[in-house]
């Protein structure tokens, strides 16, 4: 094994520039003659635009242009789109309302952009923005998704009566009804999966530069998937043909889903750059980010689980209303359907599942994928149901899960997925050991002695990631393929450039992808560079989301490495004057089997290019190969997280005192990086469970519109986490990788709530479980003082 190969906790190559302040984030990049954009945004949740008066603003110092939606339409810039078609149960297509990059006839949420000022400086643009007078005709707004379909509710888009985007379902309703009829016990829960603001610490930004001579655009953009951005901006917005639009996503400071999407601001920056003939920069401030970066979650759900007397799960029935906000976004239709209901089987053998999902418009910001995207919502439903059922049936929650685990693979669930490999008993057992489950009763008694209520909660989660087999995605309504591509360029001197279609915004690809090459070719990672995030360099790519870069992107890399090795062996055969079939390649050395004849890596790479030792008509010179890899299945990471809390009955404060995570991610390339992904994902899940929540008032104003009002988890929210792994290899890709990016955020919220409800003795608690919420629940449950046993 190479010292920098697979499985080694190699320190990250990219860190040198980040720890010295030498990263290149979009806002760090400047172009000569650059101008600045400031967006004029709607202060109303729902209103008609009667008129826009830009006269005064246009004459202010430094102002180059004040542009609005009518001009955008006149220049034939198309609408933003949702790229995943969902059909309702009656067969009708989803109701995608027009989403212009600048609103021209009406605004549908606070923050909806209506005009843009382009000026010499940001301060001048901002000053002029204050002087753009928009005359609005206010309309009643609908904010609460549970009320959006009621008769008489304000109607947002003509195309969508009753604000309903689709009424979708999956599963067999009659089969589920029969399961419930035969049940000895039914557990019921009403769940609100709270709305979250992604809050990557780098705000979104766009720098657009139109070259008037070549009629080409360059866009530097905080994007998780620059090729998809280029495709959408070209094919649907009609800004420029793809070959005349270059999108560069340089260093990107976190994404968590929110930077997958194509937003109005980058589209307007491109268009404005062409209008004014100069580069245009826009950098979101945090207040704008709260208003317009796509939010996550926001489900209202009623869920029921049918069980027999022994605690065997017979069926699950779920009805969810998903709030998609004022406009659909790129993936927003898929999140509460195929990324949600397909996970309702959890780790369990359940023969009947039926789920209905109504997606609705409201006068709030768009909702789309946020770390986990649908899978955290599903896991919350399943893991809360299982935990509550165990309590109601007086079965130990670990034992309850064990009784219902899927134990043989492959396993076909009633909701599409075929789980390929896993060992759920193993991860549960390891987690129980690491968390010292047997010692919990003693810890609970000790907590009671110092006035605290201690509780324990489980989450044995599964997720489907490694998005995704293209034909399967297409059959479910997806508008693109979800393969990944790679190009490996071996230079004459033996150094290697790997151009990948996935994108890193914190995941450490420059290190982990290089480790795969190092393992394969025996070269140190310092002689391998990973190139990503530039449509002019990388042949194509679908970007990074859905924990796909390892499972799909590295599989594309392996496929390209296979081709490089095959070609290099042909060259080596000529150099060693041996038959190609006799060439062996090990630790960076090519040798002839059974002899001491060999040539090192650098000898083969040089000769591949100078081409003196073989006939260039029979074997092409050079050593560069490309690949497109389309996965054959989703991947199914799974594991067990255990949370212990101590609740202070005086204040309702729930402190997480212990966290144990045991995950099966398949083969791990870099354990240090994987642990980091778990820590971060769990922290986001704990944030959802304990403190985060986007709150709109009834008029549609975002009450939690800054870091002063929206509670981002801080360092003192968390205990030191205990992290372990188990291993079953993923059988569907060459490295056996399942993926790890989202697991923490998927697993953790139900573990926290299960622990708090275990501590306080009532199931009636909503996320975020703030001290006020917990204290109020305690008053109802009567368990306001610890019972010292």
């Amino acid at each position, binding site marked *: 094994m190479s010292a920098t190969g697979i499985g080694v906790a190699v*320190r*990250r190559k*990219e*860190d*040198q*520039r*980040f*720890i*010295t*302040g*030498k*990263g290149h*984030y979009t*806002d*760090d990049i400047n172009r000569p003659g650059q101008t600045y954009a400031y967006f004029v945004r709607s202060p109303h949740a729902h209103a008609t635009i009667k008129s826009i008066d830009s006269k005064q603003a246009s004459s202010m110092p430094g102002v180059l242009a004040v542009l609005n939606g009518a001009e955008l339409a006149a220049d034939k810039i198309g609408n933003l789109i949702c790229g995943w078609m969902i059909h309702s149960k009656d067969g009708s297509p989803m109701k995608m309302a027009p989403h212009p990059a600048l609103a021209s006839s009406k605004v549908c949420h606070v923050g909806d952009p209506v005009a843009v000022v382009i000026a010499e400086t940001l*301060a001048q643009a901002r000053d002029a923005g204050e002087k753009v007078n928009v005359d609005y005709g206010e309309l009643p707004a609908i904010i609460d998704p549970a009320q959006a379909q009621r008769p008489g509710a304000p109607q947002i888009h003509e195309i969508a009566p009753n604000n309903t985007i689709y009424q979708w379902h999956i599963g067999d309703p009659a089969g589920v009804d029969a399961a419930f009829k035969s049940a000895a016990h039914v557990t019921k829960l009403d769940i609100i999966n709270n709305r979250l603001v992604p*809050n*990557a*610490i*780098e*705000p979104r930004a766009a720098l657009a530069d139109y070259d008037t001579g070549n009629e080409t655009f360059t866009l530097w953009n905080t994007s998780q998937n620059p090729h998809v951005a280029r495709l959408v901006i070209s094919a649907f917005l009609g800004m420029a043909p793809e070959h005349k639009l270059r999108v560069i996503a340089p*260093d*990107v*400071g*976190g994404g*968590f889903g929110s930077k997958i999407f194509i937003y109005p601001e980058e589209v307007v920056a491109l268009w404005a750059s062409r209008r004014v003939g100069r580069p245009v920069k826009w*950098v979101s*401030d*945090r*207040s704008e980010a709260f208003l317009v970066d796509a939010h996550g979650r926001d489900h209202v759900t009623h869920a029921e689980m049918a069980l027999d007397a022994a605690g065997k799960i017979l069926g699950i029935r779920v009805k969810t209303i998903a709030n998609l906000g004022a406009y659909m976004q790129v993936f927003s239709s898929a999140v509460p359907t195929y990324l949600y209901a397909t996970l309702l089987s959890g780790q369990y053998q359940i023969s009947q599942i039926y789920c209905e999902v109504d997606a609705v418009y409201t006068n709030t910001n768009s909702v789309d994928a946020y770390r986990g995207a649908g899978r955290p919502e599903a896991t919350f439903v399943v893991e809360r149901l299982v935990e509550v059922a165990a309590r109601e049936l007086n079965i130990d929650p670990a034992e309850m899960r064990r009784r219902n685990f899927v134990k043989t693979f492959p396993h076909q669930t009633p909701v599409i997925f075929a789980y390929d490999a896993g060992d759920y008993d193993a991860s549960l057992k390891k987690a129980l050991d690491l968390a010292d489950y047997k010692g919990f009763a003693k810890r609970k008694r000790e907590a009671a002695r110092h006035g605290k209520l201690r509780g324990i909660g489980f989450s044995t989660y599964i997720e489907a990631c490694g998005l995704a087999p293209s034909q399967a995605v297409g059959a479910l309504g997806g508008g693109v393929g979800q393969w990944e591509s790679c190009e490996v360029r071996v230079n004459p001197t033996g150094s290697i450039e790997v151009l990948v279609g996935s994108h890193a*915004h*914190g*995941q*450490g690809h420059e290190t982990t992808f290089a480790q795969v090459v190092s393992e394969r070719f025996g070269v140190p990672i310092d002689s391998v560079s990973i190139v990503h995030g530039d449509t002019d360099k990388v042949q194509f790519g679908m970007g990074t989301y859905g924990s796909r870069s390892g499972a799909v992107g590295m599989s594309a890399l392996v496929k390209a490495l296979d081709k490089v090795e095959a070609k290099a062996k042909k060259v080596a055969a000529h150099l060693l004057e041996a038959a190609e079939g006799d060439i062996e390649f090990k630790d960076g050395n090519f040798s002839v089997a059974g002899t001491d004849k060999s040539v090192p890596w650098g000898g083969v790479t040089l000769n591949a290019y100078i081409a003196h030792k073989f006939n260039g008509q029979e074997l092409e010179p050079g050593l560069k190969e490309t690949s497109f890899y389309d996965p054959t299945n989703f991947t199914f990471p799974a594991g067990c997280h255990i949370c212990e809390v101590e609740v202070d009955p005086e204040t309702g404060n729930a402190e997480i005192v212990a966290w144990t995570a045991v995950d099966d991610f398949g083969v791990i390339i870099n354990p*240090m*990086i994987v*642990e*980091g992904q778990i*820590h*971060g*994902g*769990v*922290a*986001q899940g704990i944030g959802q469970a304990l403190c985060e929540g986007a709150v709109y008032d009834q008029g549609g104003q975002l009450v939690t519109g*800054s*870091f*002063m009002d929206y509670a*981002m988890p*801080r*360092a*003192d929210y*968390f205990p*030191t*986490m205990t992290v372990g792994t188990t291993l079953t290899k993923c059988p569907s890709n060459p490295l056996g990788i399942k993926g790890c990016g989202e697991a*923490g955020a998927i697993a953790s919220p139900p573990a926290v709530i299960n622990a708090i409800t275990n501590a306080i003795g009532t199931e009636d608690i909503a996320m975020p479980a703030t001290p006020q919420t917990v204290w109020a629940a305690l008053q109802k449950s009567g368990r306001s003082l610890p019972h010292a046993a």
Partner: protein
Amino acid sequence: MAAVSLTVNGKPVTADVDPRTLLVQLLRENLRLTGTHVGCDTSQCGACVVLVDGKAVKSCTVLALQLEGADVLSIEGLAPANGPLHPMQEAFRENHGLQCGFCTPGMILTAVDLVRRKGHELDDRTIREELEGNICRCTGYHNIVKSIAAGARAMGSVPASKAAE
């Protein structure tokens, strides 16, 4: 416009700025020191932390004109050019204390100030409480806490002239 003279990363700087210019704008836009980041507009996130006369300051919260005669150290000046990394930088790399890197400069400089105030042996609780003004969305803070503890110890075992920075 108004003039201000100060020292940035050991070099004298004089700039003619719009009076509303913030220190972070002076650093990023006038001096092109883009390692100092802006993550919010309410002085909560700490991505813009620099050292002013040795103390951690959110550079989005001070006007450039307030810094006449001040000694400012940004992330670019923490380690000598072409020299070894500062022990706190090294600790962040060694302990995987960063992912996307955006909050990192502010975290590192906050940590250096923390060591100045609280010494080289920092327990977990102290570090977590002292990070109240710095938000990270990637790491769950776990490895940042580990990095700071290790960096603080390392700063105690290198020559005082370097560790004092």
